[in-house]
């Protein structure tokens, strides 16, 4: 379990990093926290010709308040997001989700750019990017472009980046909501999710005015359930709502069987979590409404 031979470079600017990627003719790979990449190297499932280490580049790690958006530098560690008062105040769903990301040692190293790029279908940050409609700023030899989260995740462990592009920043819109919830089931604390849902609602005393739903662990990518959002808002706000909502959510997914869980069990979990999440979000909303 030793990696195949590779070259290594630790450039001091994004431009130099892109240059190195271009020079590698698509054979190079970016190294951020290394928490996902290094196991792949050790199993020889990834065999880059060169590793371009981003960790020496200044100015890629920040959490910035831009009024209606929070901007996060690609090299920001999971642990910084977990403990940021700004994130807690302005992106509460993200703040609640971060402690579910792996274990302390991994959160110390793992980065948001790495997590999004790795595109694990059961990872929290990709799901949050979908939930918040984040925009992902990417730099490559042709300059800067911005990709909507919805376009970024192509398949399990596959993003839409060109091999010489680097994620530099992720912007999360600050949401307007009356209640929210984040629910997750993992086999052990810190494991990848078997199923998870992020949810927020806007409501009056008598009815729902808006909803946002994202789920993960139940498809090859995290999903934003826009249809379910509309169906939920159309339903009467009564005691049956959580149950009916959970049916709606379950009807939108058809997870495959794998080693960790059958599709049927994942669907069951998601249903249970949906119920729980909506109750929590409505209760919080009731207090503020």
């Amino acid at each position, binding site marked *: *379990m*030793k*990696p*195949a*031979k590779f070259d290594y470079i630790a450039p001091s600017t994004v431009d130099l990093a892109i240059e190195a990627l271009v020079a590698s003719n698509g054979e190079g790979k970016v190294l951020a926290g290394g928490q996902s990449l290094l196991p792949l190297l050790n*199993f020889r499932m990834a065999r880059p010709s060169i590793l371009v280490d981003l960790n020496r580049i200044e100015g890629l790690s920040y959490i910035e308040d831009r009024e209606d958006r929070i901007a996060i530098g690609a090299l920001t560690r999971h642990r910084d997001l977990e403990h940021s008062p700004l994130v807690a105040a302005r992106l509460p769903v993200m703040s609640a989700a971060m402690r579910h990301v792996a274990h302390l040692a991994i959160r110390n190293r793992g980065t948001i750019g790495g997590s999004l790029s790795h595109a694990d279908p059961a990872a929290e940050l990709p799901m949050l990017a979908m939930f918040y409609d984040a925009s992902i700023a990417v730099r490559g030899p042709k300059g800067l472009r911005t990709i909507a989260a919805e376009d970024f995740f192509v398949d399990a462990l596959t993003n839409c980046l060109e091999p010489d592009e680097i994620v530099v920043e992720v912007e999360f819109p600050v949401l307007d909501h009356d209640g929210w919830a984040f629910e997750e*089931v993992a*086999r*052990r*604390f*810190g*494991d*990848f999710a078997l199923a998870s849902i992020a949810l927020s609602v806007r409501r009056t005393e008598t009815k729902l005015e808006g909803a946002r739903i994202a789920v993960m662990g139940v498809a090859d990518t995290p999903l934003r359930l826009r249809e379910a959002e509309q169906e939920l808002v159309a339903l009467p706000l009564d005691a049956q709502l959580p149950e009916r909502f959970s049916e709606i959510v379950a009807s939108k997914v058809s997870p495959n069987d794998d*080693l*960790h*869980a*059958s599709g*049927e*069990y994942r669907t*069951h*979990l998601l249903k*249970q979590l949906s119920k*729980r999440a909506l109750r929590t979000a409505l209760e919080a909303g009731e207090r503020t409404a």
Partner: protein
Amino acid sequence: MNSDRPANRSDVLRPKNVGAPIRRTEDPRLLTGSGEYTADRMPDRPLHLAFLRSGQPHAKITRIDTTAASEAAGVVAVLTAEEIVDDFKPVIPFSRMANYYATPILPLASGKVRYVGEAIAAIVATSRYLAEDALELIEVDYEPLKPIARAELAVAEDAPLLHEEAGTNVLIAREFKKGDVGKDMAAAAVRVGGRFEMTRKAPLAMEPRSYTAEYEKRRDALTLYTSSNIPGIIRDAISESLSLPGHRLRVVAPDVGGSFGSKGSLYPEELLICIAARRLRRSIKWTADRLEDISSSSQAFSEIVDAEMGFDANGTATTLQADVIGDVGAFSIYPWTCGLEPVQVVSFLPGPYKIQSYRGAVRGVATCKPPTGPYRGVGRPVSTFVCERLMDMGAKALGIDPLEIRRRNLVRAEEFPYRIASGIIWDKTGFIECLDAAAEAAGYVQLRKHQAHARESGRLFGIGIASYAELTGIGSRIAVAPGMPINTGSETAKITIDSTGAITAAFGVASHGQGLETTLGQIIADDLGARFEDIRVVQGDSDEVPMSTGTYASRSAVLGGGAAKHASAILQAKLRRVASHLLEASTEDLEVTDGKVAVLGTDRSVTFKQIAKAVYSDMKTLPVDAREELTATYTYDPINGTTAAATHIAAVEIDPATCFVKIHKFVVAEDCGRIINPMIVDGQVHGGVAQGIGAALFEELIYDDDGQLLSASLVDYVIPSAPEVPLMDVVHVESESAVAGGFRGMGEGGTIGAPAAIANAIADALSPFDIDVSILPMTPERIFRLIQNAKLKAKEKS
């Protein structure tokens, strides 16, 4: 030389060390990174090994081309079976058992591969990186054969054969019989039964298997550093296989990071590294990576048990029958054979109960998987799971409380020694005492009330009990593995006081985490009259210690401890004789404590150091014939060994939304005889129960129908981590055994009781659905399926 008589309880008047929670001598070095594990060895310019392993479950090897690999950067040698054929004799895991076929152990696959992960070729290179690079250049052509992935299918007449020479896939078959089971079943008021299964498990020691072979040119000699828990057996086996006499083959087990049985057999890699070092006249290192450790170290369980138990109307279990199929993997292991685990299942199945008639049949079946081998508890986790499930099923059918039904069936104090239906003899142990102590500690009556409340509000709350007994510290009258020709019945201690007064105690029993350096030191301190901190315990080095088979089967405290007591007594007598000269007092008037010999009732004394000076370094003080070397060696054989027993009680709750099991309470009441170090005993129980929780709820090596391992990393092979292990309550019932010191073995019990207790608790929690638990681990997925099916059935009915 041997002694089977009960140790004189008053042989140590005021034990200061035995019974005290002394901090482990090992810990300062292990916790500060100053330990020395095999991989820490730094021989002169070592070479590194890497193995090419089969990706095929079952295939003929038609061609191996190593040309390109041999020419790769850093490669010193590429070895294949053909290349090394003259360098060794195959090792045969011999046994006198009837109906047993001993598959030979070869360092590299020859002609055919039999499981995914079997080593086919080895590369020796200047670094592990380069060795692994070169692995990719070896070309192997296979002619695929039908994989044999399921033991139940492998017993069919027309199944493909894994070992053609054996003529069958059934490598071992055996039957135990007592009384007339047919008649007793017919007469039973209630019969319960089912098909039980414990899936395949990885022992998963924190330190993977690791070997360093150090070549000494000067003497054409080898030192093998090995992460083994049986270094003595390894030394003898390799000596025989390589025709290398013991004084040119030293085997050392330095600090070893756990075994749980996975380091308790001879491995092909262990042979290969010695062959390679000798051939190349160079030192060579190899440490398994986690993938290799999971996919090539011996595995556990993998048994299917069809069992039935009959009860009379009073709840007395009268009869028991079982057919066991053990999926033993591709090879028999040395020295224990492939019979070790499955045969123990049938021999322990009647457990601590007075069941009168019994039939237990077992078949150990070869499949395309790594061999199974010893695993903490050997056979008894499975036998206890089955027997204790049957007890609970009987209790339920008869409407008797599970605690009460056990009380009615356990062997009682006045009935020891008791021969159970499979032939095992239990000596006097606190069976009932453990049951009662566990019930009391768990607050059993209160717990049942709590459960009734919880049920009323629809909660799935369950309580499970498991009682078991095991043989520990087995002496020469019983073979540890059936029919095995190795002396597992005795152990030797050699205690020496050198010319500086320092005490060195050499034991063959090795240590791989048990804290034997501490506990054996405690025994010697008391029995010799020494200060604990003055004693150095040496283990696991064939040049330094007496011949030994190692640490396994909960034997080392009993056998090593017994040897320590006797050797200490002999050495103390020598000290007294010298001291009586020096102090001009009669030996009876002397007292030996704290490293000094004193004349009773006076302030006159001599230290061990003064005694040593007088014996070794002084020509005047003592007469010549009184200058006896201050050393004593004693070989202790407990002949029968001793029983250890425990009752575990678990209270669990299942979350119907997630189907996760939460353990609210876990109580162990165990009888390990006289406790040497309560802190170590508790630690052993905690660790064992944690592993038992793994077996009950999490851990499963999943092989698909093609023999491919699907859960080959720690992402997919899920083990309990700290949050999944609850606080436990451990109660000690210290009934002294009849062996020297009154000890009983206790290293394995946690793993034996926990799976059964948790299984029973889950079944109890799910009883509103009328669900029986018959397979472990009970993963959330399995619980989900059970509940879904039960709901479906209920719907169909209504």
